[in-house]
């Protein structure tokens, strides 16, 4: 009775179909296995990450000189619209869904999601969204140029007079992506509430599962509002109704309300699962239990609630009355409380731990640092007087790229490296992983920090040319962007080569505690030969307590 064996116990190492070789063709099929769908999501969304990245390279290439010389202004508008739309609707949301798809059933001890076929349908809508978005380059007039907000009256312009414009395709794509997300939301909430393994109470669930639940609840209450706004916008464009057209008695600001009622909480849909990833990774690589597990778990749900009443902070300059500015400034700042709790808990988890700086831990630490920085500028932006000053400047762009790249993409890379051995049964190359981290960390800082001073000096966003006084900061940012683009190369090399010929991974390479580490790598198609009976809270590092009934029995016999 000295050490708990953290390797899998009594689970046969089998390929997905017992006796058959791992068949790559199933990744191109309508598979209902959540593990296949998870990887389909991750790989598809990574492809769109590269597409959105190319758009970003064109944007930063244009901005390296003050004049609009690389691309036409119209093309520049298309580029920032499609960069934002692709990165959000085709990279961040689907990639996090992929991670959640792969991990949630394994972490809660279920054999699959509650609705496997619905899950597959939801995934296969993502390529349709991609085809509509990218296909809008081919219609007359080109893709949408109104930014990812698609604010009317800008988005209602139709100079070519065609029925099918880039903007119409954009709205259709967003609507389909919304339907897919609602399907995912229903599936995840049902799975987490109804399919947990025996003994796994809510307060025995890993924090990642809590955060996925919190994020999917936001999707369920927020997305329909965006859908309502998008339907009205589509009718305005196609049928000539006047919901958002002031000349017909409509109110364009109402669209902003519909849009941000969803799209601000959407930021928490993105960042909450990353909070979950941080909460999973820090205990493993610090060999300590997560500090304040229950409070960290509940604070995810608090964010779900509070994030529903903050959206007007995007509308401080949209003729918002004073009391609204005041109210939403206070609520927005309240979000800092549950997030602050989490940051404190992670810091306390790392504090005094035996840190092992493998690539997942490096990415998680880098992501945490970036997130704290983004949080500080976020509090600044929540304050009405500062926001009025820097609204629609590069300060905002710098802030949300620090959230989306600095925290979200870093967290996602941490997760991919951490669970890569579980998903593929192979180890990645540590050297390439560390190279990827340092390129990304330096590139991220060089790219997005200079945007803050440029914004404070008053450089507006969404412009192809700018005053030469901002040139210094823009050259730095562009160099950082190119570095960030380069950082993807070692990642792709690492993933492809280690998946093909990497070292075979053991079932639990990180000596982590969790149900997903008790099964073989990659897990068998039914996940668990026998459903585990959970008897302990997660993160029992250094406590010598068994996690499942089977482990307890084995210990008692030994």
């Amino acid at each position: 009775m000295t050490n708990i064996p953290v390797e899998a116990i009594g689970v046969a190492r089998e390929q997905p179909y017992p006796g058959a070789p791992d068949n790559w063709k199933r990744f191109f099929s309508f598979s209902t296995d959540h593990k296949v769908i998870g990887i389909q999501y991750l790989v598809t969304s990574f492809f769109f990450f590269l597409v959105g990245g190319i758009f970003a390279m064109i944007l930063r290439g244009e901005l390296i000189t003050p004049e609009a010389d690389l691309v036409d202004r119209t093309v520049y508008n298309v580029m920032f619209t499609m960069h934002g739309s692709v990165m959000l609707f085709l990279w961040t949301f689907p990639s996090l869904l992929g991670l959640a798809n792969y991990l949630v059933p394994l972490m809660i001890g279920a054999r699959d999601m509650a609705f496997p076929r619905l899950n597959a349908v939801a995934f296969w809508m993502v390529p349709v969204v991609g085809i509509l978005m990218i296909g809008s380059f081919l219609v007359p007039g080109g893709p949408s140029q109104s930014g990812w907000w698609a604010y009317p009256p800008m988005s209602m312009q139709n100079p070519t007079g065609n029925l099918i414009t880039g903007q119409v395709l954009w709205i259709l794509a967003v609507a389909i992506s919304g339907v897919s997300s609602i399907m995912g939301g229903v599936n995840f909430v049902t799975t987490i509430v109804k399919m947990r393994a025996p003994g796994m109470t809510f307060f025995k669930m890993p924090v990642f599962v809590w955060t996925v639940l919190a994020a999917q609840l936001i999707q369920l209450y927020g997305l329909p509002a965006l859908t309502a706004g998008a339907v009205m916008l589509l009718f305005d464009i196609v049928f000539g109704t006047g919901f958002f057209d002031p000349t017909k008695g409509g109110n364009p600001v109402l669209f902003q309300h519909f849009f941000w009622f969803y799209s601000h909480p959407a930021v928490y849909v993105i960042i909450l699962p990353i909070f979950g990833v941080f909460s999973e990774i820090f205990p493993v690589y610090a060999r300590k239990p997560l500090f304040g597990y229950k409070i960290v778990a509940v604070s995810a749900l608090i964010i779900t609630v509070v994030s529903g009443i903050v959206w007007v902070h995007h509308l401080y300059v949209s003729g918002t009355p004073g009391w609204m500015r005041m109210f939403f400034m206070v609520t927005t700042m309240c979000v800092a409380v549950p997030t602050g709790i989490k940051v404190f808990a992670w810091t306390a988890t790392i504090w005094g731990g035996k840190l092992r700086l493998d690539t997942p831990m490096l990415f998680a630490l880098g992501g945490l640092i970036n997130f704290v920085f983004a949080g500080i500028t976020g509090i600044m932006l929540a304050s009405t007087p500062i926001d009025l000053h820097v609204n629609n400047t590069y300060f905002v762009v710098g802030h949300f790229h620090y959230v989306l790249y600095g925290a979200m993409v870093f967290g996602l890379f941490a997760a991919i490296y951490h669970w890569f051995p579980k998903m593929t049964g192979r180890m990645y190359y540590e050297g390439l992983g560390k190279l990827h981290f340092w390129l990304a960390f330096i590139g991220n800082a060089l790219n997005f920090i200079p945007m803050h001073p440029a914004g404070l000096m008053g450089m507006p966003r969404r412009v192809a040319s700018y005053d030469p006084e901002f040139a210094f900061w823009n050259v730095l940012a562009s160099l950082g962007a190119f570095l960030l683009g380069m950082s993807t190369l070692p990642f792709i090399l690492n993933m492809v080569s280690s998946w093909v010929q990497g070292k075979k991974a053991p079932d639990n390479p990180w000596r982590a505690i969790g149900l997903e580490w008790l099964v073989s790598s990659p897990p068998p198609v039914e996940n668990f030969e026998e459903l585990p009976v959970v008897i302990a809270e997660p993160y029992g590092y250094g406590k010598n307590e068994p996690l499942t009934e089977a482990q307890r029995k084995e210990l008692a016999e030994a």
Partner: protein
Amino acid sequence: MTTESSIARGIQAEIVEAHDDAGNRMFGFIVFLLSESVIFLSFFAGYIIYKTTTPDWLPPGVTGLETHDPAINTVVLVSSSFVIYVAERYLHDRKLWGFRLFLLATMAMGSYFLYGQAIEWLGLPFGFTSGVFGGTFYLLTGFHGLHVLSGIVLQLIMLLRSFLPGNYDKGTVGVEATSLFWHFVDVIWIVLYILIYVWQ
């Protein structure tokens, strides 16, 4: 190949048995309805904002909405909620013909509602593009009408499936979900009727 797929099928069967499938479907459907109700809430919120802030709310030449015929429509739709409940009770007692009869009655009442709405639409002096008033009126009633139509289609499917032998061996979750959807459509209509017709 065949052994491989039969093993896979065996595993699939095991996966289904391991969980409370019917309970999951009902739970998932309720979650979906809650989410769907947010679309209506958004439209309602939009309607209230437009009605209270638009300077020229009614288009020129329009004095208001006729409330008499829509009131009859409302009574028919709301009572159909009780009729489908009776159908559900018959199914609960495994009296299939009573179930079929009352389900058919529900469908007839739903269809009457849609017919009444079509008559109303055809007689109105304003269109979809007649300002924000016309836009929100047709948007709200049309979106709700689509839900009524979906409800009738679901009921038709449930009616046809009741003739399949052994259809209720795995429980009656499909009928329960259809019935719940119908109550949802009813409640939405009551709010909608108050907002559009009563509050003028």
